[in-house]
């Protein structure tokens, strides 16, 4: 068994950069979470990152994360204890004590939320998560896809309200209830789901993603400090594939049922001169079409990078005139089994005619 490693204050920035990239356009900006974790670390909090083999089979693991709209996350900053209070309410309802916390999604702000709650509770975090990327809905984790119990779960807001779900029929109902309550809570709340046994987490978590995010962030930092082309370094070092380069010619957005849906239209440049790109967005990037042909789609990772700086662009900062590189990463095999595709494949996002064509890891 391994002891893992202690997260340092200096790790928080690269972790947040890597998490933003794995957010595939969504998941919320991890910057605010990074600052919150930094405040706690500076006050002496310590958080250890444990590999999947570190804890005994019967240890209880808590999954916590923020639930709401990304654009709210940068404006209505957390009171701070939302996820922590939700986690304590779940412990109370389940009658267990958590041994460690794990992220629902490594992509975006929820990479940091378990670290913050763990810092407040004095717990370690597990090196892994339930998506290996970001997705917009609660049920879209490997944990739920492979049978995690939906209850007891709890949702907490900034004002001291905590709602506990004692009996919930399935993960879809949990998503529906939690989503509508999160909207009442101002589209920014902390959600904790039912405790999971470590042997279950070991089998179902996407492994090593905290370290993966850290390494991606360090690749970006190193490329910048050496004045290298960040997009090229990422393509070389992460096994990602380039799918498009071009300029954004229009962004169409609307809010439907709590999610920012829309399309980004792109005019190709460089090797894609004369091509038209279109990216479907629902918080995250869902599908990329080039000249009308779908070339990469969920659950594989579609990432927009600023063409010059390599900065990952969240869907809410996409603007007319931006020059972007669209790169893709294959999702973990646990996310593309037939049962997973029912929950996170193109059909689950309203594209009944698309057949998922998995992206192969380059090299």
């Amino acid at each position, binding site marked *: 068994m391994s002891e893992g490693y202690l997260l340092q204050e200096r790790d928080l920035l690269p972790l947040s950069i890597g998490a933003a990239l794995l957010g595939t356009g969504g998941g919320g900006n991890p910057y*605010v979470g990074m*600052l*919150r974790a930094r*405040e706690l670390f500076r006050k002496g909090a310590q958080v250890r990152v444990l590999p999947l083999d570190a804890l005994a089979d019967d240890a209880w693991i808590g999954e916590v994360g923020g639930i709401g*709209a990304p*654009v*709210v996350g*940068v*404006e*209505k*900053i*957390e*009171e*701070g204890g939302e996820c922590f209070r939700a986690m304590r309410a779940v412990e109370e309802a389940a009658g267990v004590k958590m041994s460690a916390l794990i992220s629902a999604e490594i992509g975006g702000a929820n990479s940091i939320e378990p670290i913050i709650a763990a810092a407040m509770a004095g717990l370690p975090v597990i090196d892994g998560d339930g998506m290996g990327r970001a997705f917009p809905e609660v049920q879209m984790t490997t944990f739920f896809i492979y049978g995690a119990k939906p209850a007891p779960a709890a949702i907490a807001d*900034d*004002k*001291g309200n905590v709602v506990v779900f004692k009996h919930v029929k399935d993960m879809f109902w949990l998503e529906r209830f939690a989503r509508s309550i999160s*909207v009442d809570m*101002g*589209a*920014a709340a902390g959600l904790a789901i039912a405790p999971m046994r470590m042997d279950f987490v070991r089998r179902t978590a996407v492994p090593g993603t905290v370290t993966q995010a850290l390494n991606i962030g360090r690749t970006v930092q190193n490329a910048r400090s050496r*004045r290298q*082309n960040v997009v090229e370094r990422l393509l070389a070092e992460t096994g990602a594939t380039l799918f498009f380069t071009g300029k954004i010619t229009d962004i*169409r*957005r*609307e*809010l439907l049922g*709590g999610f*920012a849906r829309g399309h980004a239209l792109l005019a190709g440049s460089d090797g894609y001169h004369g091509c038209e790109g279109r990216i479907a967005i629902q918080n995250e990037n869902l599908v990329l079409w080039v000249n009308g042909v779908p070339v990469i789609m969920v659950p594989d990772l579609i990432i927009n990078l*600023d063409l*010059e*700086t390599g*900065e990952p*662009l969240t869907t809410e*900062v996409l*603007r*007319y005139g*931006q020059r972007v590189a669209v790169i893709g990463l294959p999702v973990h095999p646990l996310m593309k089994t037939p049962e997973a595709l029912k929950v996170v494949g193109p059909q689950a996002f309203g594209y009944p005619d698309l057949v998922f064509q998995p992206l192969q890891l380059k090299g």
Partner: protein
Amino acid sequence: MIRIGIDVGGTNTDAVVMDGDTVLAGVKAATTADVMTGVVNALKMVLAASGMAPSAVDVVMIGTTHFTNAVVQRRDLAQTAAVRLGLPATASLPPMVDWPEDLRATIGNHYWLAHGGNEFDGRVISPLDEDELLGIAEEIKAKGINSIAITSVFSPVSNDFEKQAGEIFARALPGAHISLSSDIGRIGLLERENACIMNACLRDLSAHVIDAFRKAITETGITGRFYLTQNDGTLMDAAYAERFPVLTFASGPTNSMRGAAFLSGVAEAIVADIGGTTTDIGSLHKGFPRQATVAVEVGGVRTNFRMPDVFSIGLGGGSHVVETDKGIKVGPTSVGYRIVTEALIFGGATLTTTDIVVASRRESLGDPAKVAHLDTGLIARTQARIMAMLEDCVERSRLSPDPLPVIVVGGGSILVDGPIGGLQVIKPNHFAVANAVGAAIAQVSGEVDRVYSLAEIGRDEALADAKSRAIEAAVAAGALRETVEIVDVEDVPLAYLPGNATRVRVKAVGELHV
């Protein structure tokens, strides 16, 4: 049309007279402690050099880095009260949490978190508590603070709480300067709050500086209109600029880069604007500054302004040169406008970068005898240090290995001799006054920011309406109709409001019409 462009930097006040696209004359005068004398001198000099009568001047455009320099150098900043409305939300991160320690200390690190704020859909997070705010006002008064920055959660959606809190503070603290974040920035609490606090700490200075500009123009006998240039290179009138000094923050780099492109005729390049105190480096694309896509830092503070992607270092013609145990230290402190009395070549006692250049016999300026004693090793090490600083800065702005030229402009250009990091250097005619040229060619903008109900009117129709309103606003602000172009369109849906409401912002820009 006869226009005068003025650039008031930390060291020099530059002025140009332009007739259409022709630069008739360009001069440099020293910036003075009172600002006004330097502007008067520059105006008189440039009018004389161009042979133009004051009455013939149609318009004066002023760009200034004065406010940016004040933040970068942490001087002339007022003690500022940052008041955030949003409790219990936002308690995890206090205002100024991501600021450099020294800047936070300079303006006092005074902050209060109070109740108030809105949810994304306009609902109230918690009601405004007048007693709580009056209690804060007492504390602000007791600390002798005269400038207040008020930031309420989701004020870009609803700014009622900021306005109400502003009125409460105005009644409790008569004469206090009050800055509201909703007037300054967009969604993104920390960045908007940062910009609002910086605006607040500059209000004392802005009242003084704008008044000096006004008096200087009047004293010279010019009766034409008077504008300041803002971040995006367009113009704002003086009264507005006095209330919103923060909106001039990136105007210096914008003006120098647009001026550099105009003067050199080169549209793809890196521009290094070397002033007396700082050097700003950015890249030109199609003749316009490349905009930053992510949060831009000013003096180490994140903001969400749309600004040129410029990197600044404390290197200029007036930078202090000090020999330390760890080698030569150049800047970031500078004698600034006092170079004409404090530099060695002008009989002063402070060793500056300009002294080093004169000692190396590259330039003849002041009294070279006063630097003849300088050690040749010191001169060589300082020059190497200066070139290393510039090369590092240029490398940061280079986004590809393509060998773009570096256009060097600004009064401190004498520091550069030969290529920077192997890249060709271009010094265009009038390079020393490129900032002032950029100010003189500044355009006029019109902006609309309206909420449309897409249930009543389609998106295309809403955008078309907003665009035509923006064009009319630009024309009303003085733009020539046939030159007006839409430069920015942004639509943000406001969730859960009846009728699928969308907030649309459109900006149109055109040439100033006289």
